[in-house]
């Protein structure tokens, strides 16, 4: 049912774990449905210097989490925001149709982490200096 690439990413996930003092953290999913994903990002000069994940879920959920960290690492914020759930599935040579909806949450997780980063950054800067141009 799963492609070899999904199984490979499930068996040997990349970038598993937390980032201490992450610049942005995004959690998506719902354990009732069987998937909960947290993506951690570290940003330097507008680039995603480090991306890590922690996931509770099926093989598809774990494989997509691993894949998103690979896809996002080194990209600019703007580039990373363009990564879609379809991109993740494509990189894994596809997902079973039933898993496309429920377990393919990694792109949303990444976007949520970036939103969190922006909120912290903008919030912080607005307090520190006057950014009104």
């Amino acid at each position, binding site marked *: 049912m799963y492609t070899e690439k999904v199984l490979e990413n499930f068996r040997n996930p990349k970038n598993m774990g937390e980032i201490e003092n992450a610049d942005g953290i995004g959690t998506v999913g719902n354990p*009732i449905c069987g*998937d909960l994903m947290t993506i951690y990002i570290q940003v330097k000069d507008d680039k995603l210097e480090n991306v890590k994940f*922690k*996931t*509770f879920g099926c093989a598809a959920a774990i494989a997509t989490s691993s894949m998103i960290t690979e896809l996002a690492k080194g990209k600019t914020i703007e580039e990373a925001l363009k990564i879609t759930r379809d991109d993740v599935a494509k990189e894994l040579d596809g997902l079973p149709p039933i898993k496309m909806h429920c377990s393919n949450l990694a792109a949303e997780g990444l976007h949520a982490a970036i939103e969190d980063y922006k909120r912290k950054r903008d919030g912080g800067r607005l307090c520190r200096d006057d950014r009104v141009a």
Partner: protein
Amino acid sequence: MNESVNMKSAKKRVYLDHAATTPVDPEVVDAMQPYFTRFYGNASSLHSYGQEAHNAMEDARKKVAALIGAESEELIFTAGGTESDNMAIKGVAHKKKRGHIITSSIEHPAVLEACRALERGGFEVTYLPVDRFGMVNPLDVESAINDKTILISIMHANNEIGTIQPIEEIAKIASERGIPFHTDAVQSAGKVSIDVRRMNIDLLSLSSHKIHGPKGVGALYIKKGVQIEPIIHGGGHERGLRSSTENVPGIVGFGTACELAQDRMKVDVHHLAEMRDRLIQGALTIEESYLNGHPTKRLPNNAHFRFTAIEGESLILSLDERGIAASTGSACSSKKLVPSHVLMAIGLTEVEAHGSLRLTLGRENTSEEIAYVVEALSEVVERLREMSPLWKKDLELAKWKEKLKDVH
């Protein structure tokens, strides 16, 4: 593809999914062999080819009957457990034309879906609840009976959590009220002793491939005098109750499997229960692990667990990587993405059901294999928990538990 299959078969493999199906015993295969190429007659034919097939089939019928203490004339061969369940339930219902059926909420889908189909046709069905161990209370059966009740169907042992039901008590209640009692004994046959006479059973479903026989064969025991309407019509085979040319090699194999099961039951049950207890003891040393089902009234080959903060499909695939074949009630592994109805019925939350694992043993498993499985299991659980954002995040878990309360 071929390469990866070969690689898989080269490493250690342990099959712990005997509730799904069992390997066919070599003795069974030997018994079946001549009925493909040598004695290939149609059991209905009058010539000697037909008679050879017929005699072999009747010999098998005796062996199947002996396993459950029935007369051979009381057994109808079917294509499996699902057909037997359908035949019993729809057969009684269609004979009576209308009425009320009592069953439990943890039956196999073959029973539940047959009952739902009857509901659509105007029958009434009561699905009894179970306690947290998965046990039906006979008093609930008694109070569900009304003057329209035409059938009571309660499984002997549950296929997921292995709980053995008090069917003797339930059958006694049914028989006192003159209501036919059916039991699905697909998982219990050969592992729990059955005597249909002593136990007051009117209809009983059996399946060959769960007891080291071939797939595609089963039987329905119908006590003398119990009337059913056939669900398959045709040339009048099996006393007109189940038309279709009989699967002679399959039936011969099933007969031999029943004979072996009966001969070996004492030894098998002792061996299975010993391994099961070792497995349970070992698995429960893992932090936040729980046993599902009844602590003592359970099948000798069934161990069913749940592990906090991990998901079953990941667990199954991780065990498979280590050569261990198991099963889960997690929604993520089901075709409909809903958690097991059995786990819901015993009161688990969706999150708990996700972390479920069923390990079912067979006579060919060894103690060494159990030791290997316990070790692999604790490694796999630890690894998945390392990955899980729910593990050791008491706040996260508590938060979701609160949300669950709102949902329910």
